């Protein structure tokens, strides 16, 4: 018995290779976790002296060397929500078309290709587009509107992709059942498909928010300013045809252009931006996990 299953040299080599491969691949995976942990820890440690509630609600002071980030924070919120208001309906409806209406023909393959390419267009090209189309051609000028529209188009593929995924996860049999009782295509979508995929769609929307909040290049040339004087803690400091400050842009300017900044200030700005983005993403992930555990099919 024993000799039958004893390790031959070949098996031993095989096994050694196996564990070597496993070890190497494991290390490679860990090599991805380490940077995330290291970066977040380092930034938080460096930012610690500045991080406070006051930092969030105060305006930049002393030539942006001290004070807080309130105008940038609010500016980012403006940009994110306006771009969301444009991108969400457009993206969700586009995804509904692609997943519920489109047949597999050359035309829809082109649409698919367009979506993929839209996702792959470099952010700086989106900036050029925003400048050419919204600032100059549509005459919106350098403004929150131009910047948000640019962001909206840039983040559209994010919403389309995750909405499609959510819609595709609704079993085909649900739709067929609904059609069989005489419902039209839209009635089926409204009463069966959408209710069953709403959390998935929401996840996509949340991801769009995180993406839009972090982008710098597209807003730099379309509507973000170096500085705008506002009051500390004002809730609605901007008009839509004005320019605004934004967190990502603010991080860029204080780390490259403003001399004599208190050392922890850019770190704190980076932590707020990173924290906001990761928090939003984490909530999308949490939503997805909850959703998956509740799914009955």
């Amino acid at each position, binding site marked *: 018995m024993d000799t039958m299953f004893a390790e031959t040299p070949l098996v031993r080599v095989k096994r050694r290779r196996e564990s070597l491969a496993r070890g190497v691949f494991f290390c490679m995976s860990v090599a991805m976790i380490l940077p995330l942990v290291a970066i977040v820890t380092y930034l938080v440690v460096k930012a610690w002296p500045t991080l406070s509630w006051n930092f969030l609600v105060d*305006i*930049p*002071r*002393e*030539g*942006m060397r001290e004070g807080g980030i309130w105008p940038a924070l609010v500016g980012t*919120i*403006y940009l994110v*929500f*306006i771009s969301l208001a444009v991108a969400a309906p457009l993206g969700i409806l586009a995804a509904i078309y692609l997943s519920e209406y489109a047949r597999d023909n050359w035309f829809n393959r082109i649409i698919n290709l367009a979506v993929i390419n839209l996702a792959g267009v470099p952010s700086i090209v989106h900036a050029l587009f925003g400048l050419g189309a919204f600032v100059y051609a549509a005459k919106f*000028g*350098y403004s929150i509107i131009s910047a948000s529209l640019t962001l909206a188009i840039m983040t559209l593929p994010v919403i389309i992709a995750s909405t499609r995924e959510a819609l595709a996860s609704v079993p085909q049999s649900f739709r067929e059942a609904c059609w069989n009782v005489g419902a039209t295509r839209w009635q089926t979508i409204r009463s069966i498909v959408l209710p069953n995929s709403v959390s998935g769609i929401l996840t996509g929307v949340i991801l769009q928010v995180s993406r839009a909040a972090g982008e710098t290049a597209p807003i730099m040339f379309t509507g973000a*300013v*170096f*500085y*705008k*004087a*506002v*009051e500390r803690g*004002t*809730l*609605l*400091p*901007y*008009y*839509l*045809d*004005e*320019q605004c400050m934004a967190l990502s842009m603010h991080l860029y*300017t204080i780390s*490259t*252009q*403003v*001399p*004599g900044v208190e050392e922890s200030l850019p770190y704190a700005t980076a932590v707020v931006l990173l924290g906001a983005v990761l928090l939003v993403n984490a909530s999308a992930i949490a939503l997805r996990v909850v959703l998956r555990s509740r799914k009955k099919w």
Partner: protein
Amino acid sequence: MRLKLNPMGIRRLALAGRVALGLAVLGSAGCKPKSGAGGETVIQNKGSDTMVNLAQSWAEAYRKVEPGVGVEVSGGGSGVGIAALIKGTIDLANASRDMKEQEIEQARQSTGREPIEFVVGYDALAIFVHKDNPIEAITFDQLADIFAEDGKITKWSQLGIHLPGRRHDEIVRVSRQSSSGTYEFLRERVLLQKDFKLGSRDMNGSKEVVELVAHAPSAIGYSGMGYETPQVKMLKVTARDGKPGCTPTVQTVLSRDYPIARTLNLYTLGEPQGALKDYIDWIMSDAGQAIVELTGYVPLPAQARTHPPARREAVPELVSAPPESR
């Protein structure tokens, strides 16, 4: 100047959007637009990157003087500020160079108004090296040899300098991106319009230049004198006229002993009116000039403050609230 009388309906749309956003973000309770919504005056200010920090500090301080006025400050460069002024899309352009004759003509044609210049201070281009670098002084010719396209100097040893404890002898040239006023100014004054050698590290902001030099013992760079930090050293600069070299300070700039200094200008379209006039008057007052010095630039001499450049003589009474008044 865009007061609240914006010709397009976009303002109203904006207000609606703002309220709608407010509702969406905060819920209807507790949300009210800022008192006197639409009553705020916005001054759009754009231009030189050298001046952007100064402009920002003015905007910040002026907010305390005149809370009803919001100043939007963007950088971009002198050329961009002037281009925007020519198009009439901004109220106030910052420029660390003079407007060219051709640009003034374009502005006249495109807007029908005359660009008006205000000199609001001076800046000197300092030559920075790492603080451990033993070099103390440099001449225009040496700078041209280091930075210009056909320049021969690529190593510190060619200047007779031996960097302590480092194996780097190669000079790391730190420059600015090709459209900045600072870059053009150095090219005009020192390189005599010859092009820069390619391969320099072209930083996007004046601060980045100084930061890079601070961390690179073999680097040399140029930037406004306001950007000096303890980790870098400013060199004495000798021009071709043979005057003894000196480092940039308020005195050497005002006495014109320091050879690479320039004026900092503001441009408006036509004689400024209303809030814009008040803002410029305040900038030229002691309060505004104190900020120039605080930011690291050279303020106007005292006699120039009450009588700003020639054109302003027609309006002698410059009433401006001192910053502490509110």
